[in-house]
């Protein structure tokens, strides 16, 4: 029996009511901004506990527009983590700013203790990445950022509904950036993203920037971008949003099942769980001995495990000009060699979870078999 990674064909197999709403909406032809988007934004803001939410074209643009609204531009430096999806770094670089990396901690997030070492007079912002569904230690990062008067834009693309000490990912900094990409915990049928903020002026700037800087049909008050969340996708998001908490809980249950069955295996190391953090497992990642052989064994046996990522962003060829070398971030490097991601989504059936455990156990009892 196969355990696939993507569950999208199952997720929308039973959505007749969504189809009905789309059929009612499409003849209006109101495909840009509009009421469904406003409703989705309000519901999203309520879900996370923010004052405002602004739909944009992608999680990447949610980061980019937030940084731009905070004044980041050519020549500035922005601090982020050495292992993240390329989008975090792409968003910084697109503005002409320079990404500056710090190493990760044992939960794949920014090691806050290293941030002050890399602050220079050109540093303008910090982008902590709440990677895999964990959270950066925002209780430590925020006072530091305030002391240095640096803007914090949270990359919460993988951590919708995660929290630290009861406070949600995305609500700590000046802005929180979320992705609605098809494989995210709250997803739409295309690319999509959301910026959340409690600052009305900041929200207004994002609203202008996502729509060419147009304050009305005929007036451009600042040059912006074309980065609106598609109205049709807002309807899809609105339909799925009431399930968001349940999706997150299902993923947590799946993670608990894996944890329980992997923890007796000496070859598997689980990252620290719980404490003040509430993880949401966009990715279920553990550290595994003989990772590459385990990955091949999984694939051979129908378990679509993945690695996020075998080559961390700071060592990617596109960033060679920054001058980083392998070994600059030892924790990130060590994790890149041993981290493995197992399917953890809300559509997995019990027998699929059992199968994953069985395949992993089988590998370590006879790893050459």
């Amino acid at each position: 029996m196969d355990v696939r990674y993507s569950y999208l064909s199952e997720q929308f197999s039973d959505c007749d009511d969504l189809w009905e709403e789309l059929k009612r909406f499409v003849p209006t032809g109101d495909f840009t901004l509009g009421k469904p988007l406003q409703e989705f934004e309000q519901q999203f803001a309520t879900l996370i506990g923010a004052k405002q939410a602004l739909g944009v074209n992608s999680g990447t643009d949610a980061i980019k527009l937030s940084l731009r609204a905070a004044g980041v531009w050519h020549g500035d430096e922005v601090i982020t983590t050495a292992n993240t999806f390329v989008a975090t770094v792409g968003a910084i670089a697109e503005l002409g700013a320079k990404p500056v990396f710090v190493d990760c901690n044992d939960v794949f997030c920014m090691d806050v203790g290293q941030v002050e070492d890399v602050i220079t007079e050109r540093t303008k912002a910090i982008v902590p990445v709440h990677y895999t569904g964990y959270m950066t230690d925002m209780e430590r990062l925020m006072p530091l950022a305030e002391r240095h008067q640096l803007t914090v834009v949270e990359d919460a693309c993988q951590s919708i509904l995660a929290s630290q000490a009861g406070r949600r990912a995305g609500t700590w900094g000046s802005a929180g950036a979320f992705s609605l990409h098809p494989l995210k915990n709250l997803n739409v049928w295309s690319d999509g993203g959301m910026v959340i903020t409690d600052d009305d002026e900041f929200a207004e700037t994002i609203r202008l920037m996502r729509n060419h800087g147009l304050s009305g049909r005929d007036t451009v008050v600042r040059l912006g971008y074309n980065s609106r969340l598609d109205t049709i996708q807002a309807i899809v998001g609105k339909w799925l949003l009431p399930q968001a908490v349940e999706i997150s809980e299902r993923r947590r249950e799946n993670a608990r099942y894996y944890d329980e069955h992997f923890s007796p295996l000496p070859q598997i190391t689980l990252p620290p769980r719980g404490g003040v953090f509430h993880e949401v497992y966009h990715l279920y990642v553990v550290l595994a001995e003989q990772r590459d052989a385990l990955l091949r064994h999984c694939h051979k046996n129908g378990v679509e495990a993945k690695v996020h990522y075998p080559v961390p962003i700071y060592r990617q060829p596109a960033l060679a000009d920054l001058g980083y070398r392998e070994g600059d971030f030892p924790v990130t490097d060590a994790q890149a060699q041993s981290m493995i991601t197992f399917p953890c989504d809300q559509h997995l059936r019990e027998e699929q979870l059992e199968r994953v455990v069985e395949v992993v156990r089988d590998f370590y009892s006879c790893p050459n078999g």
Partner: protein
Amino acid sequence: MTEIRYVDIGAQWREEREELMPMIDAMLARGQHIGGDEIEQFEEAIADYCGTTYAVAVNSGTDALTLGMRALGIGSGDEVITPPNSFVASTAAIVQVGARPVFVDVGPDQNLDPVLWSPPSLPALGPLCLCIWEDECVTWTPS
């Protein structure tokens, strides 16, 4: 009195719905929400239509301009000539890549006036950002 709306996108949907719905349904059933065969087929059809070798689908016309300029190496310190009567996106794309928009007036056809923007009145130029207006494309090769 007959009311004439500026645009009725819904009318387009009413005409196309029967044919489109099964295609959308099939795409969703496969869970292929990003990229995939449909994109490639669409790109090939557009390339055929335009008579070009390639077509690459992107998020918006604005991003088509931005990515096009980036691919051509246009960036900080460059100047890009564009008409002063376009939608804001043409100019915003130039600014986004870090270049400076330089406006040149248009002729009677609303396109860049070739007399005003031909050398030697302009400094040495790299690739130019051309605006297609009313389906007419202004073309010019730096000599």
